[in-house]
């Protein structure tokens, strides 16, 4: 379990992290979202003990990173941003070095290295020099060192950065699988990754947490969450739009009617007391009564990028 309380990090006059607190338990995968420069990497660097916080505390399974850094670091596997590697080593050699520093010795050493190589699909490049690897392989090599010692806590800074879609999917699956028995934090810009792999997400902006919840909870915060999106054909787009606005459950209709078109695409926001389902059936009944052709009718569950933008743009 990771417990972070009131973390602050100042670099001279600049405050990069301004009082961040959160807890992540075993079996949870926490996603860190936020614009570039929000403080995600800085926060991770404090959690992993690379940076000393200006103030605040970090506890890893009850061990304070400040008081007992070596003990705390033993429990963590970390994939830093840009996946740094020693370019003068082979993949297996590099993992061997990391195994040594992690105290993974004796008989379990070879097994741990072999397993890490296999899990990260690195067998083909096992004896290749790191400086000849492609970006995808470099990333996976760095990921391999983070899981080598079977850590209870995994902290991954943009783990799918620069990977192709297949590799991204592999890494996400790995995170999801490992997350069942471990505590994982990973940062990303890719919102679909949050839905794919996280049990919870936190949005960070300008050094502060601006949102915290499950992906579903965050999505519900979107301004058009719960709106009914429609695509309707009828005599005139403007006419259709006008009819939608008149519906008893409709608060407002978003989307302009194209002039001269007989097809309307837009979304209808329900009134506070009207459920999305009721509004959808009202729209359906309207189309039936007016003999409009209804080609699309679905509820917008809220989009993470809308939430992201609304939470982070207001502070610009």
């Amino acid at each position: 379990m990771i417990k972070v309380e009131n973390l602050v990090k100042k670099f001279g006059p600049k405050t990069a992290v301004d009082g961040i607190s959160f807890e992540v338990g075993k079996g949870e995968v926490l996603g860190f979202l936020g614009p570039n420069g929000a403080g995600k990497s800085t926060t991770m660097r404090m959690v992993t003990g690379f940076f000393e916080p200006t103030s605040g505390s970090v506890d890893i399974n009850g061990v304070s990173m400040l008081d007992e850094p070596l003990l705390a670091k033993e429990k963590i596997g970390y994939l830093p941003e840009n996946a740094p590697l020693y370019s003068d080593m082979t993949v297996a050699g590099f993992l061997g070095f990391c195994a040594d520093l992690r105290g993974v010795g004796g008989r379990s050493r070879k097994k741990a290295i072999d397993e890490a190589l296999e899990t990260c699909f690195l067998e083909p490049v096992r004896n290749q020099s790191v400086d000849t690897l492609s970006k995808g392989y470099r990333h996976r090599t760095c990921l391999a060192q983070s899981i080598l010692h079977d850590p209870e806590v995994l902290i991954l800074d943009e783990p799918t950065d620069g990977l192709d879609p297949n590799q991204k999917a592999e890494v996400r699956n790995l995170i999801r699988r490992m997350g069942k028995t471990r505590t994982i934090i990973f940062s990303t810009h890719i919102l679909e990754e949050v839905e794919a792999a996280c049990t919870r997400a936190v949005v960070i902006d300008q050094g502060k947490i601006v949102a915290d919840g499950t992906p579903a909870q965050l999505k519900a915060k979107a301004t058009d969450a719960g709106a009914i999106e429609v695509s309707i054909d009828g005599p005139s787009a403007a006419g259709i739009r006008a009819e939608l606005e008149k519906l008893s459950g409709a608060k407002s209709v978003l989307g302009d009617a194209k002039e001269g078109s007989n097809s309307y695409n837009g979304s209808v926001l329900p009134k506070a007391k009207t459920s999305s389902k009721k509004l959808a059936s009202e729209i359906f009944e309207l189309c039936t009564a007016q003999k409009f052709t209804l080609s699309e009718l679905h509820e917008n569950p809220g989009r993470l990028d809308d939430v992201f933008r609304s939470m982070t743009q207001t502070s610009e």
Partner: protein
Amino acid sequence: MSIAIRNIKAVFKRELTAYFTSPIAYVIIVIFLLMAMGFAFWIGNLWDFGDASLTWTFFFYLPFFFVVLAPAVGMRLWSDEHRDGTIELMLTMPIEPWHAILGKFLASAVVWAVALLFTWPIVWTIQYLGDPDMGPVLSGYLGAFLYASSCVAITMAISAFTRSQVTCLIISVALCLALTLIGYPQIVDQLMKMFPAGVVDTIADFSLMSHFLDMTKGVLVFRDLLYFLSVIVVSLVITSIAIRAKRA
């Protein structure tokens, strides 16, 4: 303590392998050997001088090679870690910075030990030509090893402050050269003309050269060993401070 030894060994092994799987160590050792032997035989006139102790024909020139080549060995030690970002990897593992510092230092010291070992034929030469007193020769070699190690330690301290190997090299060479020259006989003589003897003696006491020359004369004074060890320890401590400061 065992974690410390485990980590120091791991870093030592890695750095030593890195030195000997790239051209760097070989190039430096070969150039050092060419210069050391070349100077001894042609400039030092080993044949004619008959200096069985090797003090003025061989050992005397070594500091000037160390001043230039030792920084070349040490400049990559932390600069590479900063530039490649691997410092973030290393310092988030269960390792204290001083484990890594000691491991790296020991690896560079071994490179110099190897380089000096390869100059041993010169000792066989004087043993063949004459009957040298081995005391000064052995203490001279020890002094040379400590001299090179001190220059490497100083370089490592500088490399902890900068990402640029070139900057590190230039500053380290300048520093090592200064510490050499303030004890260099001709310069000490000049300084004697300008400053009181006490002041010059104190300045020379900080010099790598003066302590080294004492050791090559077979004067194995505890003071000289302590001096070199102090330079090394102080440099390693400064390295530790620099690494910590960059993350605070």
